[in-house]
């Protein structure tokens, strides 16, 4: 029983990171109907930004403040990269066929990966322990251990998902975003500055990636230029699994994926760790093609 609970906790922490990255994918898809493949590299750059900031502010007291500073800095760096990518790579192709923008996104992703390898070097670096890891034993006679970092990851992920949902459904900006996602041309006719909304979406998605990168760095301190590839793929799977375009779907998808991974590695074998993500994706697409919470769009011919 305690092994089950331990895997549950581990899976939730992993799922929290996936959920935050998946939210970035799903938001951009929701507004622009295109998958921003470069999102995983924005995540990677956020991790490196966090690495450098943590080195610069090393020894700052109290540690919680240092974590906040590093996180805000990383989010800012990610936002900058996201906006740059949008302005330089995606905006010129706004009216081009979907496929062209998709390929451009893949191109930006590859560019950032290889640029990262040249600039940062391919050797993995260690993310400094900004916060001291503390173990909690909730039940003294059980082996179950929770670390403060796992709790932080779960709490921050949940809070951000909630905040994002409130933003999209309760604020004027959120209404504008939803309008743009329904029909971009009509939205601009209604007086919504669509370019600004799109930039705002990228800012939001990228900042989530930055936050996810710092949380990831705290849990798994190995930082290298290709780290975004696997995480991005899994987060993308999570977003599609939960229904691409749906915020709740991305969050749930991330959680389910994290749990599935943890349980699969424990009860079956670690060789199926990555396979389970794709197996779930295939399953969901066969049964419910639009994903769990996805919106089935009817196209009028």
């Amino acid at each position, binding site marked *: 029983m*305690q*092994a089950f609970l*331990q*895997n549950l906790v*581990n899976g939730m922490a*992993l799922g929290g990171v996936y959920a935050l990255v998946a939210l970035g994918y799903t938001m951009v898809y929701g507004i622009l109907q295109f998958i921003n493949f470069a999102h995983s590299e924005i995540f990677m750059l956020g991790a490196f930004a966090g690495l450098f900031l943590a080195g610069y502010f090393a020894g700052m007291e109290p540690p919680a403040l240092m974590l906040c500073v590093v996180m805000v800095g990383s989010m800012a760096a990610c936002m900058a990269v996201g906006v740059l990518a949008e302005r330089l790579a995606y905006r010129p192709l706004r009216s081009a066929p979907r496929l062209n923008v998709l390929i451009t996104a893949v191109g930006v992703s590859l560019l950032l990966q290889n640029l990262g390898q040249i600039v940062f*070097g*391919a*050797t*993995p670096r*260690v993310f400094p*322990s900004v916060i001291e*890891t503390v*173990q909690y*034993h909730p039940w003294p006679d059980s*082996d179950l*251990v929770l*670390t403060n*970092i796992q709790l932080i990851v779960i709490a921050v992920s949940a809070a951000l998902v909630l905040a994002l949902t409130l933003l999209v459904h309760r604020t004027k900006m959120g209404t504008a975003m939803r309008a743009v996602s329904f029909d971009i041309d009509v939205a601009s006719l209604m007086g919504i500055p669509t370019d600004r909304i799109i930039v705002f979406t990228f800012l939001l998605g990228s900042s989530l990636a930055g936050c996810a990168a710092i949380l990831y760095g705290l*849990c*798994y*301190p*190995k930082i*290298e230029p290709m780290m975004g590839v696997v995480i991005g793929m899994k987060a993308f799977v999570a977003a599609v699994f939960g229904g691409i375009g749906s915020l709740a779907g991305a969050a749930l998808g991330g959680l389910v994926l994290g749990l599935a*991974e*943890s*349980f699969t*590695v*424990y009860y079956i*074998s*670690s*060789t199926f*760790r990555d396979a389970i993500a794709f197996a779930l994706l295939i399953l969901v697409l066969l049964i419910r093609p639009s994903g769990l919470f996805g919106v089935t769009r009817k196209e009028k011919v």
Partner: protein
Amino acid sequence: MRKSSNISRLFVLVGLLVAGCTKSGGDANEILFGEYGSMTGSESSFGTSTHRGVEMALDEANAAGGFKGKKFRTISYDDQGKSEEAVTAMTKLITRDKVLLVIGEVASSRSIAAGAIAQQYKIPMISPASTNPKVTQLGNYIFRVCFIDPFQGKVMSRFAFENLKKKKAAILRDIRSDYSVGLADYFIKDFKAQGGEIVTDVAYSSGDIDFKSQLTNIRSAKPDVVFVPGYYTEVGLIARQAKELSLNLPLLGGDGWDSDKLTEIGGDAIVGHYFSNHYSAEDKRPAVVEFIAKYRKRYNETPDSMAVLAFDATLVAVDAVKKAKDLTPASIRDALAATKGVPGVTGEITLNENRDPVKPAVVMKVAGKQRYSYVTTINP
């Protein structure tokens, strides 16, 4: 207009053809060695250390006058820690650079991959630190200067059973590494033969970052020691996560742990655990003390066993070149096979009929940041 563009195209073509023809085989007055290693990637410390060892040995050989007026030189390639790149590097060294012999690699998987090419082209290859027996089993052109895993597995098994008095072991192996899989199997064989019990045997893949599920499995099985025969990057992360899960058991490992990055990645979590190695920096033998002093002076660091073994491998190579009938790969191979009593830093190196040396192993304890303390020596 057309004519001039045709002529410019012709010039470009000729230019490319000329540029493609590089001078190969080296000058007549130099002896060309090749080297390949993982200078970047998760095992980057292996490649940089071996490169330094080779560099130092060749500089010393040249300072002593070279051989018959010829200077030694090495061409080095980075295989980025990937087997495919190791094969490419070996192919380049043999076919394009036309080296006389190749020194490399540390990781058994990459030695096996590239060694097949060396054997095919009949160019001698000396591995400084690959311990899986399959490496020299590739053929009579493949040599090594380190002990092999059937012995290394026994070393840690004996240490666990006799020194630490542990009877129940859990195994956590890297399923993508020939070294890790082989070493785990040899440990299991010997541990069971002594009467120990293997309570669980789980795996991970190199490149993985989350090991909590495997560690939870190990924790549930209640062993009293865990054998983690992997490479230092994953071992560091495993140690951290084991501590986070309150898995307070001794971790044991092999020479794949030996890197200055181990304590950087593992932090406090890796301190106090043990691993088997080829040499100890605390060894008081004059050869070791002298080598450490020279290495520290040049590179400002204490050498790890990869640097020492690469140095010894190069000594063996230079010795073979000097004893060979002529400067052809075939003659050098015969001289290598007859290697006897070469005074290496790790001890006297004599290669047996399998082209492996017979050497003792040391058990080291991780004492602190980039510090290992010597525990004991285990002889074959």
